[in-house]
């Protein structure tokens, strides 16, 4: 069963298009230089509307995580318990994804992870995180 998928709009299209190419694209403020995620028109640090898209290294560290037993959505029910977390990218932004490649109970703070993409639909790839 397919998970719920994103519905891109003009603010987010570049991120999701990047995922389709297996590139992690985020915005950087053209005035104060702060990297930001999620994609949005203005900088939460300085409110500037000027920005550029950059491609992330795809490297991150685990910031926090949970092991989900359920209830959860039907699309994820057959993989419980699964680990999902918030990772801090080397570029400084935080993203949510599943954490894979080890026993969920072996996950620890600061663990090195790298992005991997699930091609879940012809127009959608989802970035998850695998123990590096």
């Amino acid at each position, binding site marked *: 069963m397919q998970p719920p998928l*994103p519905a891109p709009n003009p603010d987010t299209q570049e991120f999701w298009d990047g995922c389709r190419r297996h590139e992690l694209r985020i915005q950087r403020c053209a005035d104060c230089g702060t990297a930001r995620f999620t994609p949005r028109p203005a900088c939460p640090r300085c409110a500037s509307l000027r920005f550029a898209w950059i491609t992330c290294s795809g490297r991150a560290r685990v910031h926090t995580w949970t092991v*989900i037993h359920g209830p959860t*959505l039907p699309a994820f029910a057959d993989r419980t318990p699964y680990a*999902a977390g*918030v990772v801090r990218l080397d570029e400084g932004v935080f993203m*949510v994804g599943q954490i894979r490649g080890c026993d969920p109970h072996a996950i620890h703070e600061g663990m090195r992870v790298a992005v991997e993409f699930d091609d879940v639909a012809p127009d959608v790839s989802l970035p998850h995180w695998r123990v590096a």
Partner: protein
Amino acid sequence: MGSGKRAAIVGIGQTAFAKQLGITEAEVACRAIRAALDDAGLAPRDVDGLCLYDIESNGVAEIATMLGFRGVRFFSTHSHGGGSYCAIVTSAAAAIAAGHARTVVAFRARNRGRRSGFGSGMMEGGRPWEKVAPRIDGMYQWQVPFGVAAPVHEMALIARRHMLDYGTTEDHFGEVACAIRSHATSNPHALMREPMTLADHHASRFVAEPLRLLDCCIETDGGAAIVVVDAARARDARHRPAWVLASAQCLGPAHHHPHDWFGFDRRRWIRAAAERLWGTAAVRPDDVDAAMLYDHFTPMVLLALEDWGFCGEGESGGFVDGGALRAPHGRLPVNTHGGQLSEAFIHGFNNWNEAVRQLRGTSTCQVPDAELVLVAAASSDPYGAVLLSAS
């Protein structure tokens, strides 16, 4: 804001709480509001203000139509569910203080017991997070496609980080659940009244580690309503008024969505709100006799204790050890009705009813001579708190 005691809660009402009431949210609202007006000794013709949640399925026009309110001259709706139930009362009190209304009704009617869904709409019963569309936009597109779908999943991520940063343990979460349950045992309206031990808590199944079933509030059908009036009406009230002594709201760039929560230090804007609250009221946290803290999940009570200054940052685990939250003799009795964890999950609105009962001296878990009660909203959301005073 400081109302200078220009507004007070003089009526409280509620429906029965159940997994399935078998009536619509419209009827839940009507019953709760009628009960609150009856309690206040007021009639629908007296109502000139209406404040409610924006996720309420009964809008201001529906309520006025159903109950025949003819003189409404102030109305407002407020975002963010449990984050906003203090904003609703702040709005009511502010409207009264500014002369826009004299008698404001506020309420929450909520049919969310699992079997009680009555429509396909996101807010029409059942569990909203289960009613996700195949394609989603907005903030949830950054978490739901990855399996972080339910509120408990979000709160588990926040709870884990609190454990990492401060050494908080599952025992601390369990003590929050057990203390609040101990209050519910004497409340005939509470859905969960069986005494609970830490062993019971630890034996309950994991939902999203580190959170267990008994760390979670109980999805419920039911409603609660209050009547807020101006000082002249409060002085003539049938019951002892619960005066709005002070309130503070806060909103910053980080809330419960996990990709947002960790990027900013939320305490910066919350600490400022706490300073406004205590400064306006000219009281300190130690003066508070009881607190109604939004307990959708146990760790969020710990955050609230830190946020409003009952203990220092990261010290909430130590604070709850030793029974500080337990009535009647704990340092800060919390949720003396059983809260959202054990009485009913009415998006916090049942907390008003209990705060008022404490100040009237009519709680089933009464704190002796309670004079000052703090009511605080969901610490995971746009946020706020109100201080209520008996005199």
